[in-house]
């Protein structure tokens, strides 16, 4: 049998599917981590409804010897933990692809086409029984079998499992047996062409989700306070940080509501801590007033907004980029703020550090605008380098640096617009923050001259802020010069767009992708420059009204040959982007 196209280029896509509660994400990520350890590149993503048990879940994992930015549209190997999975994803199975399933599943005649689909029946249940494991372990057996099919050994999988159950010898043992039995059964009984060449391997990489990368970025940036209320897809940041609070020395709090979460964050920032909160749309609504308090009191906070489809509670476990304009314009009145949208796990790490630095340097609130697809997907990458982190605290006066002369003015009118800030408890100085309009000391005022001076002070930060942002690659360009077509997008669209560039390249179409990273202040010049000589242009957004397009129109007057709005809660697929681009080019 002919190998599938991806197998030929040393690339394969797995899909693990079953019911909620069958450990689908766990299975997918364990496989991804094992393959990362094997030196391969991976991108894995989970699709699940907001249901704890039951309901169809599936995890798509694309693995390759080269960089992977998004899962492929088509699947090579389906690992079906129930029959539904096999049937539901047949349409996405590449010709020559296979299905790993429990021998106890019976397919009726005609359910599976006779040609082009390989059936890999494995005694999942029997093996689990043999090793006396719980039903959920069928998952593990199937992973062992899948590795055999793609020609890999189980060393790394065993390692990952052993670490996961560290200290529970018995469990590790039975899992390892399950893996090996699955592997050996498949090796003995089945054949599949998608064998990996691991010589292309790049070892010592890590695999993380966007949430984890953001959490690590926060830790690296010296965040000392995180307060949040659970909300998909932001909760994972909370979970991770709370699990590590003793190692990091961070205070991590589950607040009673998003209102409490954000106002606690502002309180901690006032005192002098780098502080952060995270939420999704509904919770962000509840944070808007506190966000404005941060703006008015010049308290540097970082808010991670993990977008999911709205309006209202919408679709809790799906993805969208539909909160952009809301985030940019949020809260009454006006004050400088930063909105930055990471596009992959590396961005999640580095841009989080930048957000903390900008927030503190300019004493303004910053929003990290992520989405479910980026937050919950796994991506392999080079380990983040903590040595590259530079913590810039701006005009924060260290406790020992306070000279103690005169009364301290929290809102001193300065040329830069930034007023030196002390740490709460500095001997001999008191600090008055005020969400009402105020004078230099922080006392409430409505004096027409004074209030204009204070607003001007706040907005005097803008030019330098813009300058700083221009130095941070606010717009990134991928692909060659003089392209036939230029794709423009942001956030998690980066991955599928980069994959689409590859697909187009294979067809000889020269394409470019422009990623806008900073949304506010908007990098107009950098963007306009990147758009020069770009051929046809296509905007990609997972929202209905093309929010980035509207922002671009406002700031640059530029339009697009095509503006594609996808809003079914699913991320873009590389293939569909390539197809549209092809039509346009």
């Amino acid at each position, binding site marked *: 049998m002919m190998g599938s196209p991806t197998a030929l280029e040393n690339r394969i896509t797995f899909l693990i599917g079953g019911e909620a509660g069958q450990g689908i994400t766990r299975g997918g990520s364990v496989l991804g981590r094992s393959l990362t*350890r094997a030196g391969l590149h991976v991108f894995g993503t989970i699709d699940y409804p907001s249901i704890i048990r039951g309901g169809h879940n599936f995890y798509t994992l694309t693995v390759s010897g080269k960089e992977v930015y998004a899962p492929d549209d088509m699947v090579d190997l389906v690992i079906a933990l129930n029959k539904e999975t096999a049937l539901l994803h047949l349409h996405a199975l590449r010709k020559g692809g296979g299905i790993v399933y429990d021998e106890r599943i019976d397919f009726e005649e005609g359910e599976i086409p006779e040609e082009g689909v390989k059936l890999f029946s494995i005694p999942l249940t029997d093996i689990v029984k043999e090793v006396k494991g719980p039903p959920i372990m069928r998952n593990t057996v199937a992973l062992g079998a899948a590795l055999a099919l793609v020609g890999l050994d189980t060393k790394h999988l065993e390692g990952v499992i052993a670490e996961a159950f560290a200290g529970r010898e018995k469990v590790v043992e039975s899992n390892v047996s399950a893996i090996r039995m699955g592997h050996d059964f498949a090796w003995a009984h089945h054949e599949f062409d998608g064998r990996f060449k691991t010589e292309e391997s790049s070892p010592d990489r890590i695999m993380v989700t966007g949430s984890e990368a953001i959490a690590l970025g926060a830790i*690296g940036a010296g965040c*000392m306070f995180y307060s949040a209320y659970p909300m998909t897809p932001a909760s994972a940041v909370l979970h991770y940080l709370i699990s590590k609070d003793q*190692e990091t020395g961070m205070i991590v709090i589950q607040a009673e509501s998003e209102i409490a*979460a954000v*106002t606690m964050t502002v309180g901690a920032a006032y*005192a002098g801590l780098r502080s952060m909160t995270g939420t999704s749309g509904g919770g962000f609504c509840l944070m808007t007033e506190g966000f404005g308090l941060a703006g008015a009191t010049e308290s540097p906070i970082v808010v991670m907004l993990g977008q999911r489809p709205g309006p209202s509670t919408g679709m809790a476990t799906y993805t969208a980029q539909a909160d952009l304009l809301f985030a940019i314009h949020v809260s009454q009145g006006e004050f400088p703020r930063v909105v930055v949208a990471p596009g992959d796990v590396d961005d999640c790490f580095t841009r989080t550090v930048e957000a903390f630095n900008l927030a503190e340097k300019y004493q303004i609130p910053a929003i990290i605008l992520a989405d479910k697809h980026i937050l919950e997907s796994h991506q392999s990458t080079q380990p983040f380098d903590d040595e590259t982190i530079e913590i810039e605290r701006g005009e924060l006066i260290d406790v020992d640096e306070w000279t103690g002369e005169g009364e301290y003015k929290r809102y001193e009118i300065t040329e830069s617009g930034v007023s030196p800030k002390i740490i709460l408890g500095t001997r001999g*100085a008191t600090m008055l923050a005020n969400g009402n309009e105020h004078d230099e000391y922080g006392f409430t005022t409505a004096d027409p001259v004074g209030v204009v001076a204070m607003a001007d002070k706040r907005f005097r930060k803008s030019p330098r802020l813009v300058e700083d942002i221009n130095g941070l690659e606010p717009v990134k360009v991928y692909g060659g010069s003089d392209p036939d077509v230029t794709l423009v997008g942001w956030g998690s669209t980066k991955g599928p767009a980069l994959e689409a560039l590859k697909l187009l390249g294979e067809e000889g179409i020269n394409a470019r992708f422009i990623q806008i990273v900073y949304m506010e202040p908007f990098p107009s010049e950098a963007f306009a420059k990147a758009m020069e000589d770009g051929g046809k242009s296509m905007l990609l957004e997972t929202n209905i009204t093309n929010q980035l397009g509207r922002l671009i129109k406002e700031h640059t007057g530029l339009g697009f040959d095509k503006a594609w709005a996808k809003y079914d809660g699913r991320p873009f697929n590389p293939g569909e982007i390539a197809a549209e681009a092809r039509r346009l080019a």
Partner: protein
Amino acid sequence: MASIRELGTDQKNYWCPGCGNFGLLNGVKRAIVRLGLRRDQVTAVTGIGCHGKTTNYLAVNGFHVIHGRVLPVATAIKLANKEQTVIGFAGDGDAFGIGMGHFPHAARRNPNITLVVHNNLIYGLTTGQTSPTTKLGHVTKTSPRGAFEEAINPISTALASNAGFVARGYVGEMDHLVDLMEEALRFRGFALVDILQPCVAWNRINTYDFYNKRVYKLGESGHDPTDLTAAYERAEEWSERIPIGVFYKVERPTYGDNFPVLAGEPMVRKKLDSGKVAKLISEFA
């Protein structure tokens, strides 16, 4: 150690002449003086309302926040710098109307802070609407036929929320108020001091006269502040006799006690160290 004078600011005071807030502020200042605290050792967090002007008149660290959010801000500040004596100043509307979502949570968490409620049973700054503590039948701008929602009882609400220190003061009993404030500030844990504060502009019922006739001191009445049932019973009293003093007082571990990272120096003193992340990153290999 700050003196009463040093605790004042140069800001013109805009409370109405005769407002209960003057006495309240005075009582708080006297308690701070008694505790021998420096100005930089105290942080005042104020909500929005007439009470919120307190940060304009009290020369300690201050944060004038948004309406109803005194407690989460104060809680966070205490965690950030455990050496500060943190006092929240909220109105009855601020604490029990818009801010009600935080009160029981602060109480059960038990951060080592004090919440002073300027309880004038009315919305002062917004010109006299019904407050959650406004009593049945009271005619206000927004209850033209008299308030018909049972009033929130700050004392029983605090008791039901597991608050460790639950007390009521009255600005017309200054020495008692100063003692109470001192006790609250010394208490290790969340202390509620609900203070009867006549609003001379909008509340024509709960006046000085009204209270002078009715208040009596729990401390002189044989009340046992460790008896929860008795505390609930006293909390219900509001007619001929209105109790002031400590309803309930029991210490337990504070919120801060539960964070291992708070064992050492205050959070705000710690140096930021980006190196800590290296080991964690390696766990993702």
